[in-house]
């Protein structure tokens, strides 16, 4: 059962994990996983502040934990903006996330992780009402606990929940999904082996207005197909 012979979509219209193209993996959302009350006693002694908001989102075997700190005094004064809050994102992947000791070990400074961090920041900067929190910082800490494809969309979904948990004002909540294309058939919510084989688009949108706040793609794709996938991505969000 080598991956080189993985069948993306078989003749029965089933994907390698027996999903159909428009089926998402089983999902679970956990809010307030690091509450102030549960960790207050220990944190006061160690000097750690509990996060203001936290969440864990699992999509299939991918699991991401997000903690949000803020709005708070910026760690570095130079970063403060006088009229709005700055959003800082840090992304980390636990060493065992990819499973089996395979895959490249990701460290904090990794280019790839920085890019994911930047994507998350750019997604949320226009959505968070930053003008309500001048001269402060909102820190988003993303920890990928298990990776089986779709790290970015899962992180965005988890971040939305953590921000809500932290009580930070937003225009709308943000939902995100990855969309792949196999021949002419779009597939939703890709798993790791599918991600390796298919061109992929990550869409984040605001479900109530249908606006798109992130569309990221690293592979080349035909324009016609792109349009189809993008609208499918937004449909998916609002259709929930």
């Amino acid at each position, binding site marked *: *059962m*080598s*991956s080189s*012979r993985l*069948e993306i979509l*078989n*003749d*029965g*219209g*089933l994907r*390698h*994990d*027996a*999903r*159909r193209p*428009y*089926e*998402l*993996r*089983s*999902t679970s959302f956990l809010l307030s996983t690091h509450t102030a009350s549960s960790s207050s006693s220990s944190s006061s002694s160690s000097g750690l502040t509990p996060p203001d908001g936290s969440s864990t989102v699992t999509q*299939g*075997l991918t699991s991401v934990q997000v903690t949000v700190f803020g709005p708070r005094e910026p760690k570095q004064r130079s970063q403060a903006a006088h009229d709005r809050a700055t959003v800082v994102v840090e992304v980390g992947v636990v060493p065992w996330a990819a*499973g*089996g*000791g*395979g895959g490249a070990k990701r460290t904090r400074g990794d280019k790839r992780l920085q890019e994911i961090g930047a*994507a998350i920041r*750019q*997604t949320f900067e*226009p959505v968070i009402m930053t003008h309500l929190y001048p001269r402060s910082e909102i820190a988003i800490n993303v920890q990928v606990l298990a990776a*089986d494809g779709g790290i970015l969309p899962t992180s965005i979904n988890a971040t939305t929940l953590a921000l809500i948990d932290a009580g930070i004002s937003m225009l709308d909540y943000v939902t995100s999904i990855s969309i792949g294309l196999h*021949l*002419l058939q779009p597939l*939703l919510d890709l*798993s790791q*082996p599918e991600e390796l084989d298919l061109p992929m688009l990550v869409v984040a949108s605001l479900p109530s*207005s*249908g*606006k*798109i*706040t*992130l*569309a*990221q793609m690293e592979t*080349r*794709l*035909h324009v*016609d*197909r792109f*349009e*189809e996938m*993008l*609208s*499918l991505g*937004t*449909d*998916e969000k609002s*259709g*929930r």
Partner: protein
Amino acid sequence: MAAAQVAVPSSSKPHPPITILKRARTDVPLSHTKFLKKTARGKVMSILRERYVRDDIPCGFEDCTLCIDFPGQRSVLPRTGYTQHHNFAGNGHWLVIDTNIVLHQMDLLTALPATLPIVVPSTTIRETRHRSLPLYNRLQQLIQDEDRCIWVWWNEERRETATVQEEDEETGIEGMNDRNDRAIRQTLHFYAEHLDASTSKAPQLVLLTDDRGNREIANSEGLTAVSARDYVDGLQGEERARLVDLVVGGVDEVSTGERRAKRIYQDYLPQDTLTAGVKTGRYHQGHFNANQYNYLEGMVNVPGLAKPVLLVGREAMNRSVNGDIVVVEILPEAEWKAPGEEVVDQDVALRDDDADDDEGAGVLDKELEQQKSETKEVEDETRKKPRDILPTGRVVGVVKRNWRAYVCHVDRSSLSEAALTSLAQQTVFATPLSTSLPRIRLRTRQAPQLLDQKILVTIDSWSVNSRYPDGHFVRSLGQVESKEAEQESLLLEYEVPYRPFGKAILGCLPEEGDKWVVPEKKPDSLEWRDREDLRDLIVCSIDPPGCQDIDDALHARRLPNGNIEAGVHIADVSHFVHPDNPMDSEAAARGTTVYLVDKRIDMLPALLGTNLCSLRPFVERLAFSVIWEMNEQAEIVKVRFAKSVIASKEAFTYEEAQLRKDNKTLKDPLTDSIRLLNSLAIKLKAGRMRAGALSLSSPELKIHLDSSESAEPIDVEQKQQRETNSLVEEFMLLANISVAAKIQETFPATAVLRRHSPPPKTNFEALQDILMKRKGMTLDVSSSGALAKSLDSCVEPNEPEFNTLVRIMATRCMLSAEYFCSGSVSKDTYGHYGLATPIYTHFTSPIRRYADVLAHRQLSAAINYTPLHPSLQSKSHVEKTLKVVNRRHRLAQMAGRASVEFYVGLALKARGAATGSGDGRTREEAFVIRTFKNGLAVFVSKLGLEGLITFNKETHHYDAENYTINVPKADGSEVSISVFDKITVDISIEKDQNTQRGKVKMVMVSPVSSEGL
């Protein structure tokens, strides 16, 4: 990356609802697959994949009440199963097939009656895919055949039949095989239960498997399991007789009937050792090419080495069959040899071999003796000619078998007299049509019927203690020498796909069928969008007589500014054949139309090829036009490309066009247009010749057929070349070059081009040597221009055909032209050597060549008519497609040639009968083109026929240095015959007694009769 807030209009296409799968607690054990995988660097990784189980996998039963709403449910499996079986009557039965049936009994599987319902568990498909891609593809073809009742059951995806690897304290972790077997048995359990819910009279489910272990477990679980042999044995009536030969021996048989273990061959090394050896350079990997003149010799072309590796003798070739990818070990240099110079015919040498018995002692001795003497001679030879020595090696393993079905004859001599009438199973030899293949041992019950038939045989295995490979009978093609059988065997031998176009493909044709016409010109008409209206131009087409697929038409006229406008109009195939539909995939797989003497195997359905796309006269047709503005010297001032609509004014044959042009009394615009084109073509040709284009020669023959009905050939003649042939050719070349430059400029990475690499100088060495020694002529091969010039000077004043012969031989030294993707090679290798142009493609025959269709699509994107399909933007996809097209093109050429050869044979026979000489002999002059130690290869230019004359007695002397053979005359003096000498030969068609194969036999009559030699 784009991050912006854009409102997107809601979805343009409706799609099924988007859902999130919820996992039930009970599914948890089935939710993951975990396995270990070794990476390329030898690291072992444990991989965990998610997996869902479903309840909505349809069962395919026509009366099923449970599955009726599931996506993909179709009524495939009938209410009553197959009843024509002795053991499973009543409600009939359905078959469930195991993987080993697909792997070993594929031919049987395809031959099973179409009404027999078969359930294929996905485990079987997956395992087949993992084991053998060709078999997987054949299985897919079978499954997609709509006339059959075959249903794929996605067993691993359905909750009831999903399996997990079991762990047992006693036996440890369950093996992959056992698990797959269990999964397949689970399918039978499920179906039995599932059917009970919908019907009270469910058909019986029968597991077809050749694995005895699996059968035993199945029986103990209360299932019915049967081996392929037993199953076929129980079939009723004709089906049984039809299928019984298709059953491969089977796994069971080999394990019970152990053969005497006398080894002839060495075992192959394990796969790991081979890959490691190739990597370290200890072994070499390459394609095995059997020598068609000597069955005990073969070559392996190894990419890394300058010279091919020579394999001498059966042991060294170690069970490789022509086309296999093998791994060879090179012997120490002291044991290197030169290739033999003798013709050793397998049929003759091994005439007395017994099919039943491997160790026919007599044969073995004889062969050994022969080999010994041969080795000795080879050694003598080797000392004499050190430059011919090749690295010599032996095969240590086979990476990939390229076995396919071979067209064979049953060897009559391998049948005993008594067996000629018996219907018992017996072992016979099948001799393949191609001389580079070994004979195949075959077990059949219908030997007497097969004697005079052409049959299709596949090789199943070749064990170490068997001199010949074992095979099985696939089907009969028909009587030997009947035209249908010969034609089909030709197509099979050259792997030409000749099945009629399927329903899905024909569904891609325009709905109007042959009523389709170019619609009226309206602004909103889709056909007329961005098309030029060239209906008023005086366009005509010039083709060979009887041509139905007219690809191209031409026009020329004077422009007011004194320049000349010339246009080439090509059938707009890309308007009808859209990328990525079934018709397109079929055309890509066929690659080219194949022309046989009396049959054409179309690449596109006939409706398009001979009607809608064909630029027939007096009707409006869509075209893709290349239009030049040229000055009087035929230099291009301007070129433009446009989609257009034309109406051809006339369809000429070459001859008609020639006559019209030469008829001075005609002054109409059409004739003027042809004259104008002709004058331009002459200048174009002169320009090309100046640039160093070669005019090469290969014998082109024309077969006269009696009438289209009987297709009896009467005679053969060489094709005539007229001025108008060259006219059309020049303009097609020009169009191709212009298009090539345009698409290369627009799509530098993926343009579909054609090139002809300059041949390595060493290729000409032998020819140069022969010419020098025999005729004192030199051949300058420094460039194509120099070669063209020196070829022109190779003339014998009293031998007009000598020049043609040299050209033919020079052509054989060259590489063949090929399609390629512009991004995959460096730009300075784009050139076309033969045409002496820096860039070239094929654009002008989209009806019959697939590469042209691709070029059309790219050009149409280059002029912004349509966007380029994504597949044509992917380099790897273009490369892959062109690789297929190149191969098909080569095979099609060979098939065409073989077809001509067959008809030449028939024509010779007819000619012999007509002259009343009785024995069907024809006397012709021939040139010697090669000398062997015991014979001559000759070329009859009048018939385009090559033949072999062998001397069996050792009375002649062979002088390899001077390419001369000295043959004694009747009076004792000697005559020397060398390469390029003209001799007279008698040609006859001789039927081989054993193989029933019609062979062209040549006998020299002058200067010496070779009959007694």
